[in-house]
């Protein structure tokens, strides 16, 4: 088995986990940079998947399963956005070319993202795998994933003997996740778009590892693990709920101001506040996971809310920790003035926000 993108936390965890499976004889871990974490005895080969050498690596290893995890939104370390895009798109093209030449490859798993659906007010509330997006993502990581999926579809047509599984992950969160959304949620004050409360869906990193495992093995009885699947935890959280559970205050800004602030922050290189990120935080995105349950036979261990709770536990407490807020409300309840019978008329309006 060949795994790309192992220098990232998620790739590293997957490589460590997959070696415990009896079906796996040998794991070849590939990345352009040396991982900081250990890979649990996997053979690490430092190669850039943008270079044709990946074809030689694949041919020499004789891998029958390729798990492509090097499709990511954020640069590792001090890379630029251009490098990320090249790794995503050119890297995928090189890897697919290598797979096409290799007669051994029987299975290909691609880590994609629900970003392919874009995020627009005119979209249906819930995306299924077949929903065509109303507005194609114009740039950034979302466009990368659309292009990657396009190449993968072409590959699947040319090599019908290879089982291709595209996993569209919702926003990955967890104690160690280093996704753009995780860095957004670790801001001390969350900038939001005034007048919009997007619906968000999360998937826990443990579930990501698990579903990648299911996809990279022979399918279990009664399931099928080739095709395209949305992967997300059950349920939905609104951004306002997230900020309250996280205990971080929000600063609602007008949409143009957010776009401007986003580009400023991006220029300063503090966090990846890309346009598609802003679109997500404006209109939100929810996907349907019936295919994942029924066809792939995967049941996530964490719901969206549990994933977020797990993420919150690993974060520093915010400026307004929910517990302190709850205690403050309780203190108001304990005020003798209130028990004297004054109606808090402002209560309903306050909570409407």
């Amino acid at each position, binding site marked *: 088995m060949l795994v790309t993108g192992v220098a990232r936390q998620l790739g590293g965890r997957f490589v460590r986990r997959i070696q415990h499976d009896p079906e796996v004889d040998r794991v070849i871990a590939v990345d352009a940079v040396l991982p900081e974490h250990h890979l649990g005895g996997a053979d690490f080969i430092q190669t850039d998947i943008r270079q044709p050498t990946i074809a030689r690596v694949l041919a020499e290893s004789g891998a029958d399963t390729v798990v492509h995890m090097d499709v990511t939104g954020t640069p590792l370390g001090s890379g630029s956005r251009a490098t990320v895009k090249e790794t995503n798109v050119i890297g995928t093209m090189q890897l697919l070319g290598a797979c096409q030449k290799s007669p051994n490859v029987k299975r290909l798993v691609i880590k994609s993202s629900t970003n392919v659906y874009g995020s627009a007010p005119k979209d249906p509330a819930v995306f299924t795998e077949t929903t065509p997006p109303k507005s194609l993502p114009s740039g950034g990581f979302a466009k990368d994933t659309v292009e990657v999926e396009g190449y993968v579809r072409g590959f699947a047509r040319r090599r019908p003997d290879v089982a291709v599984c595209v996993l569209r992950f919702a926003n990955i969160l967890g104690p160690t996740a280093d996704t753009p959304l995780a860095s957004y949620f670790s801001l001390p004050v969350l900038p939001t778009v005034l007048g919009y409360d997007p619906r968000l869906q999360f998937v826990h990193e443990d579930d990501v590892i698990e579903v990648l495992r299911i996809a990279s093995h022979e399918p279990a009885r009664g399931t099928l693990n080739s095709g395209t699947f949305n992967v997300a935890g059950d349920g939905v959280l*609104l951004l306002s709920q997230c900020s*309250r559970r996280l205990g971080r205050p929000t600063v609602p800004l007008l949409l143009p101001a957010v776009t401007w602030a986003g580009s400023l922050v991006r220029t300063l290189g503090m966090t990846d506040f890309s346009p598609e990120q802003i679109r997500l935080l404006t209109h939100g995105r929810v996907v349907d996971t019936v295919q994942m349950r029924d066809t792939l036979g995967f049941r996530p261990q964490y719901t969206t809310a549990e994933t977020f709770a797990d993420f919150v536990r690993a974060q520093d407490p915010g400026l307004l920790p929910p517990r302190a807020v709850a205690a403050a409300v309780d203190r108001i309840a304990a005020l003798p003035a209130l028990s004297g019978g004054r109606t808090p008329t402002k209560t309903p309006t306050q909570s409407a926000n």
Partner: protein
Amino acid sequence: MADAKVIPFDDDRSRGAAVQRPARRRAAGSRRKGGGEQAAAVREPAAAREPAAGRESGVVREVQPLAGRIPAQEDVHVTRENPETGVTQPPHDEAGLEQRVARGLAFLRRRLTGDYEVDDFGYDEELTDQVLMSLLRPVYEKYFRVDVKGIENIPAEGGALIVANHSGTLPLDGLMMQVAVHDRHPANRHLRLLAADLVFVLPVVNELARKLGHTLACAEDAERLLGQGELVGVMPEGFKGIGKPFGERYKLQRFGRGGFVSTALRKGVPIIPCSIVGAEEIYPMIGNAKTLARVLGIPYFPLTPTFPWLGPLGAVPLPTKWTIQFGEPIPTDGYPPEAAEDPMLMFNLTDQVREQIQHTLYKLLVQRRSVFF
């Protein structure tokens, strides 16, 4: 915990309404999912106050934790409010007020800590029931004095598609229909409205619409909701209906392409025609500033006798008297599965629904004494 009495937060109304509809109020209280936790949260603040309250009256009861200070004479009320007696007393006294304060704070606490749930469409049932509905209800009861007929035509459970006429420049008719279904239906059903895409483009409006349970008018969303057994409301006239001039009032416009019929056919749910009288006259649209509308990117810019001449004051709707009549359901489950693809059948059914709504509209208009009473 089961004996803890939970009265909905929006109890302002219950002073007048509890007498007429005690069953409904109770049902709402017991149906509420968070009922248990709510009561639990109510008790917590009381625990903090316990020493003070105990000093004064020496009595801290389980069921009425916040009633520690009330005079003994009012205990009668409290016991009468016990669920075992089955009578909900309007909370006239201090105890009731305190209880409301406590409930309000428990609600506030849950909202501020994010401890509530929304569904996949962003529908926030708690917020809708306790805040947004309470804001709409005075408009519904006092301002438009909505008369509801034929509520028994809405099934107590399972999916159904309510098809209504659309009018009034601003989509107040949809909101009033939502309140009507929720308040008048014995099962307090929630109506999930399908709204135009413009609603989801506008800031603030889209947020409120999602929280009220509305979603985009598209076949995918409608089918998903009907598949979940929800009651879905649609106004197929769309902008043609809501933005028509005053002279054409109560003349139904074309019903889109009849997509709602094929959706209902695919899901085998009944279609319930609904006629709304009164909404046409709230903003008599005598003109349409088309150029301004194009500049603003909206389908029409209404000119009424008062708007925009009187500024924001002109945007106050006229206090017309409304009637909402739900008609006989049209079953769709008798058709074969391929019927949804049959254009002839679709047009026939669309016409049938349209005719029925138009007919009922005329009948209601004949019966109406005056626009305002």
